[in-house]
């Protein structure tokens, strides 16, 4: 018995010893960083800012899904998703959910920078520049959110409690106001165009980009005087920022490439000169896609997440260059709207922008005629019943230059703002500020005429001598087709009185008043647990 009690004591000691301390349950996570110990130095501030740029490249945004806002809704481009072509999208449509998701990830990350970076002990200039870029991005994401979704949430800070969902903004104007405030406050601390070049980091937001988006925001708000002020400031500082063919050039490729270089990945060799493509003098802001980090197929390497390229050429280019041919050009009406130049310097019989935008069956895939041959009807999606592919944005094609991962991870940048757009917006704002609320009425505002004529001269077209809303509508149509503005321009002109319901229906026959925006995704309404409401336009 005595011996046994000794065992018992040993055992009690043993049990006490292995009655583990708290440390046993305290584990270290070596898979991810802990946010509570992050944001400590300048490098981490830059990293946080990088993540705020990424959502632009996401497949939910400009990496892929923006195609529906951009191409399917546009009357000028045919998309194989007939339901979206016909505006039969609704609050559970996949891309309606996806674009919203992408934009709000961007807003969240910009807010994370703005909340965490101020407390970091680092170089003050660098800190101010980082905060300004985050403000620019917060403004940019909000601008698109308001344009597409009209009254989605306005997020001035990151939400804290997952049990409380977001609520609607009071109005589209309220979000635009906030976006404008962000752009305006960002301007003083952003890099200039020269500084960003010196920093060797093209792709960052610049003061010019902030001013251009500020002007655009006011144009969308129909605050014409403010739009005139900011776009005018930019116009006077950069009066000659369109890429032009050499004076007197009679080489037709010069005229096509002077325009087409604004959408190409690689510099274009024209007849007499080389046209710089990405970040040329006309460029203001681009989503920087590249092939530096991309491998595998798209399901595993989504843009902005494990890939620095987009999925755009894959979806949009003809079969012959491994595209899916999801889109084709509307080839019956739209080509006839282009002006036929008279006395074109290079003797062109059609607007060089038509040649740069369309690739008709029988025409060479490559203007240099090197490898690819001519486009065949079988290279196009038969159900679209078109004989023209979209050349703009996808030229030269990837079969012609060697990006091994293209077209699956397309390195071509999407331009979100260029000077031709600024000039046209400025001309429009000027004549609206004069009170030209009837699109058929004419103005002879010489500054507005000069602004639009700069764009026309690049195409070799004659100057306009008086200017109507119709001229603006037409010039934006042919100059900016395929760049994501067309449908939202129609909406803007409908809302500001230049177009009525029937006018819009001549372009989009199924258009209903609710189509001035896309609905709030019902996924978001559900997740907000009753806080976020559907736009009344979509419930009545």
């Amino acid at each position: 018995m005595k011996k046994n009690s000794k065992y018992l004591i040993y055992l009690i000691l043993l049990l006490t010893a292995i009655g583990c301390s708290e440390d046993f349950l305290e584990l270290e996570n070596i898979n991810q960083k802990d946010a509570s110990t992050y944001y400590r130095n300048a490098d981490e501030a830059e990293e946080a800012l990088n993540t705020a740029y990424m959502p632009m490249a996401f497949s939910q945004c400009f990496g892929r899904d923006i195609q529906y806002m951009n191409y399917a809704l546009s009357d000028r481009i045919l998309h194989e998703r007939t339901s979206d072509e016909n505006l039969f999208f609704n609050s559970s449509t996949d891309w309606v959910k996806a674009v919203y998701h992408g934009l709000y990830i961007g807003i969240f990350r910009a807010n994370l920078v703005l909340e965490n970076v101020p407390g970091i002990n680092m170089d003050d200039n660098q800190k101010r520049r980082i905060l300004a870029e985050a403000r620019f991005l917060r403004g940019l994401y909000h601008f698109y959110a308001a344009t597409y979704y009209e009254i989605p949430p306005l997020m001035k800070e990151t939400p804290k409690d997952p049990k409380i969902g977001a609520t609607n903004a009071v109005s589209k104007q309220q979000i635009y106001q906030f976006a404008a405030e962000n752009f305006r406050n960002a301007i003083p601390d952003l890099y200039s165009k020269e500084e960003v070049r010196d920093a060797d980091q093209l792709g960052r937001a610049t003061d010019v980009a902030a001013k251009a988006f500020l002007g655009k925001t006011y144009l969308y708000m129909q605050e014409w005087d403010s739009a005139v002020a900011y776009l005018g400031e930019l116009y006077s500082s950069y009066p000659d920022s369109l890429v032009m063919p050499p004076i007197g050039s009679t080489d037709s490729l010069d005229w096509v490439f002077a325009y087409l270089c604004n959408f190409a990945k690689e510099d274009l060799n024209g007849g007499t000169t080389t046209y710089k493509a990405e970040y040329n003098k006309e460029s203001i802001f681009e989503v920087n896609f590249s092939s530096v980090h991309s491998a595998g197929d798209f399901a595993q390497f989504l843009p902005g997440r494990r890939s620095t390229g987009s999925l755009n050429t894959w979806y949009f280019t003809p079969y012959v260059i491994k595209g899916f041919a999801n889109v084709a050009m509307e080839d019956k009406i739209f080509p006839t709207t282009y002006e036929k130049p008279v006395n074109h310097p290079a003797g062109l019989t059609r607007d060089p922008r038509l040649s740069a935008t369309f690739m008709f069956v029988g025409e060479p895939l490559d203007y240099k005629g090197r490898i690819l041959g001519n486009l065949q009807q079988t290279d196009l999606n038969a159900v679209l019943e078109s004989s023209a592919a979209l050349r703009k944005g996808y030229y030269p094609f990837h079969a012609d230059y060697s990006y091994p991962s293209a077209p699956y991870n397309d390195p071509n940048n999407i331009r979100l703002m260029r000077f031709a757009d600024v000039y046209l917006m400025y001309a429009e704002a000027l004549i609206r500020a004069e009170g030209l609320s009837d699109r058929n009425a004419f103005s002879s505002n010489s500054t507005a005429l000069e602004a639009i004529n700069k764009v026309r001269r690049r195409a070799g077209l004659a100057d306009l001598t008086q200017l109507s809303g119709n001229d603006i509508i037409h010039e934006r149509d042919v100059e900016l087709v395929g760049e994501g503005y067309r449908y939202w321009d129609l909406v803007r002109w409908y809302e500001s009185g230049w177009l009525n319901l029937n006018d819009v229906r001549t372009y989009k026959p199924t258009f209903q008043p609710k189509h001035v925006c896309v609905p709030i995704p019902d996924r978001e309404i559900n997740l907000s647990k009753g806080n976020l409401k559907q736009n009344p336009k979509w419930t009545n």
Partner: protein
Amino acid sequence: MSKVGKIFRLGENIKITHKNYREAGASGLNAFAQAYEASPLMKVYNPDNLGGFNGPNSAITGRNDRNNPLASLVLDERLNVENSLFSSVYGEVELLDGLVFRTNLGLVVGYKNEDDWYPEYELGYGRGRNDERNEKRLESTVKVTWDQQLTYTKTLGNHSLAATAVHSIEKTDSDLLTPFGTTWTQPELRTLSHATTTGARQIVTPYRLESYLGRIFYDYKDKYLFTFSLRRDGSSKFGPLHRHSIFPAGSIGWKINEDFFKQTEWLDLLKLRVGYGTVGAEPDDNFMYLARLDGPAEHVYSWKGQAGDQKVHGYGPFYSLANPNLKWETAKMINIGTDVNAFGNRLQFSAEYYRKNHEDLLVLVYVGSEFGQSDDAGRAWANQGNIVNKGMEFSTSYKKLEGLFNYTVTANITTIKNEILTLGSGNVSYVTDNNKNAVFIGHTIGSFYGLVSDGIYQEEDFQKDANGTFVRNGTAYVLKETLPQDALGNNAPGDIKYKDLNKDGIINTDDRTIIGKPIPDFTYGLGFEVSYKGLDLSAYFDGSQNMELFNNFARNGANLPSGEPENKDENKMSSALDYWTPENRSNTQTRASIGDEGYNRIESDWWVEDASFFRLRSLQVGYTLPSAWMQSVNISKLRVFVGGTNLFTITKYSGYNPEGSTANTSSPLVIGIDEGYYPVPRSFNAGITIDF
């Protein structure tokens, strides 16, 4: 087990397994659904394409761009090897009379190696796979458990007592390594070292659990039985403030027949039992209490510089949101039951009332995009509300096992009532992010939510002008003013008509309500085993009653004669041929339209179906040869049998499987959504059993 001396005992247990198998190729999506939805005009093979398969082609298959699932099913090579070791050793020592100390050390080692080869192939028309790819998935798990147990048993006259104290720890470490490579230039050199590009990812998952348990059994004359236990669990899955929780349990039993009915000879047992227990549950994932940032591989961007594009990276919010307040879910159970055995234990019957209340339910809560979580669906584990499951369970069996003719009949039935009682802070009912499952206080978890259909709009429902032509608003037909106006789609004759439940004159999403539930009112089973001499037969039936499924497979296009926004123009079920036309005024099929103009796909009871079923789960007939014949060849028993499983199912459900068709999700809130998964196979088997 071996005895060392008088008071020590040692024992060990070891099991090793080795498995080697090939999986079907990955077609990305559900191959069954893809095959179903693909165009019948698509040519399956094309010897001119690399790999020999063909894909959809707009000139032949039109807008139907469903892929050819056979290509990857056949061409992909997915090889799996699994090795595992289960072992434990224990030592036991009797310290005092009735006091036993036992220690048990367990080791489980699992090693799984997936080696997936995805070759390059072409389907034509821009489709196929443009890079050869090898993905490996090397997963190792080492789990060590160590239990210390002290047990004291004592019987004094009619009293017997057993008391146990346990301390146990579990230490599990998993390491998942996923290296991959693409494009081999030397066909015979197939290692990752020879791939043109390679990469790897790794996730390590540690887990720790520590428990203390005390338990007492007491009985008096084996007639009154008491149990009480208390355990304290601590888990590494929770943050420092909420790691531990205490779970008590207890039960009492009374064998009534030993106090009363002692003279009733046919009664063998009449027992009443009452139990109360609490059990804890942990979330599936680790580190959910931390705010995590992942990167840099997941978050890449680039700037353009003089030397070309320069990669930059960052650390972005993980897809799961931090919840530092995460704590144990507690299930509190009450059972009151009675067991009856009679006629020499031939008849057994038991009845039980149960109530299981899940408090602080652990669920994966999806959050809105404004929380910035970087997956398609941001989420957080949260303790959200209380739900209750309650009902009755009855089971009975009758056995006759003597003589030449033997039989056993068993039957059971369980009723289930599931109800959400509260929903945590805010206590707001909501619809989950799939827009189908509702989380509504007072309703069954996973209930379906949507509009209530009211047949099909016919031509008479729309306005006509003086000339007799339909009034149009743009492309939309205009409903008569006397009808509630449909704000959902551009309606035309042939679209689904919905009820204006809130009577505001407008049909919109405010008219949604609960339209079904995925949990049955009761489930039941029946079993028969009969044998006569060498012949035997067994049959098992089961069924569920009063439950619904949301037939999302049908909604996604297999059954609807109109092109879908999300699903383009798939092949349809033949029932779709009966689509609505002015001449064929169906009230069960919609019109054919390009795109879903009338928004017929909106979640409604049109897609919710009764999924009650009754199934013959298995049937077997066997014959055992007389043993006299066998003795000469030294066989003690030889039985031949034929049988089958899932031989028939009686159900009104139009999908392939009325049970178990759940969406692929780890959330208990998202259930009962049929995405067109594989049907349950009907199998037949025959065999011989030989005992030597």
